[in-house]
């Protein structure tokens, strides 16, 4: 009977080992969420330490403020780092991106992670209140850069997804065209079918054009503000593409209805 707790412990250990192994993919996001959940409390602790130091200006409040700052600033870095891990995982799993595209986006993410690591070292080295503002300002710049570059990576993921979707729609369009030609050869009136087909092709071409413009616009620049502008331009093209993809879907339906009528 004395061995039972040990057996129970072993079973639990076995269960969690399997659990971690099978559901490992979702742990990155869980980790990211756990950091985000800690954010508000850590920020409040920092603000409290800052107010105390402002009011009392003692050595104790200074030490507390530095400690709270290291924790709060460190958490911001952890959140961004975990977010980049999630992004990385998403890219690894993304069927719409080619290996080359994945490698390019991974490289961007790795560069961002290096910048975060370097900044973390500065946070760890914080010892005096006077150093806090300098580190804080550096983070603001870093945050802007990482935000811009991450949005760029996201945009590439969306472009990849839209491109894959377009290819599938083009394959369906080809089948519709073959069907129209086949009916035409049989002497059927396919005028309306050809009209719908022409509209589908027009929209397909518009989507293709939008995606090409989006891909050529979504590029990294030295200035994060310019990168954000590029992301916005690419996103507007993506939205246009999405709108036209929706129209293609409607035209497909109309085509099939007409096809049934002609038959």
């Amino acid at each position: 009977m004395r061995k039972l707790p040990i057996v129970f412990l072993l079973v639990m250990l076995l269960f969690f080992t399997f659990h971690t192994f099978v559901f490992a993919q979702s742990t990155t996001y869980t980790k990211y969420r756990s950091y985000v959940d800690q954010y508000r409390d850590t920020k409040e602790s920092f603000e409290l330490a800052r107010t105390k130091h402002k009011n009392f200006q003692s050595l104790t409040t200074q030490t507390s403020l530095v400690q709270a700052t290291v924790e709060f600033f460190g958490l911001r870095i952890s959140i961004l780092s975990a977010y980049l891990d999630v992004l990385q995982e998403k890219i690894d799993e993304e069927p719409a991106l080619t290996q080359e595209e994945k490698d390019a986006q991974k490289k961007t993410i790795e560069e961002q992670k290096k910048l975060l690591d370097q900044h973390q070292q500065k946070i760890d080295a914080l010892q005096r209140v006077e150093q806090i503002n300098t580190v804080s300002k550096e983070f603001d710049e870093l945050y802007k850069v990482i935000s811009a570059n991450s949005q760029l990576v996201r945009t590439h993921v969306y472009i990849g997804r839209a491109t894959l979707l377009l290819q599938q729609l083009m394959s369906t369009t080809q089948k519709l065209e073959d069907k129209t030609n086949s009916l035409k050869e049989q002497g059927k009136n396919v005028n309306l079918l050809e009209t719908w087909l022409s509209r589908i092709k027009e929209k397909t071409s518009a989507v293709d054009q939008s995606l090409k413009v989006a891909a050529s616009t979504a590029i990294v620049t030295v200035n994060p503000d310019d990168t954000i502008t590029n992301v916005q331009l690419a996103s507007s093209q993506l939205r246009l593409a999405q709108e036209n993809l929706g129209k293609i879907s409607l035209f497909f339906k109309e085509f099939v209805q007409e096809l049934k009528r002609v038959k």
Partner: protein
Amino acid sequence: MSNEYYFHDAPEEVTSKKKMTRLFLIGVFVLIFATVGVLVISQVTRTNNTTQDTKEEEEEVTAPLHIQDSDILQLEQDVASSEAKLKNFSLEDLQLVFPFLDVDILIED
């Protein structure tokens, strides 16, 4: 009273404890098998789904260009499949939304 009375259980208690131990061990093994079973099934389902997806993709690529007259149903299915994919296509993947963090944090003198 001898010390034996305190340190050794009565025969019927020993039998009862043995039964409890057996029951407990059976329970533990059932738990292990159930856990491993669930994990294996979920893994197999995942693999099957992936295989099915791959097959669907292969079929899409290798589908003949010339379609017979009786294939309108197939066309409808293609259209429905494209429509479903369009519905799933979103520019707002929540897991990809960049975290909003406080900036411009300064310590006043």
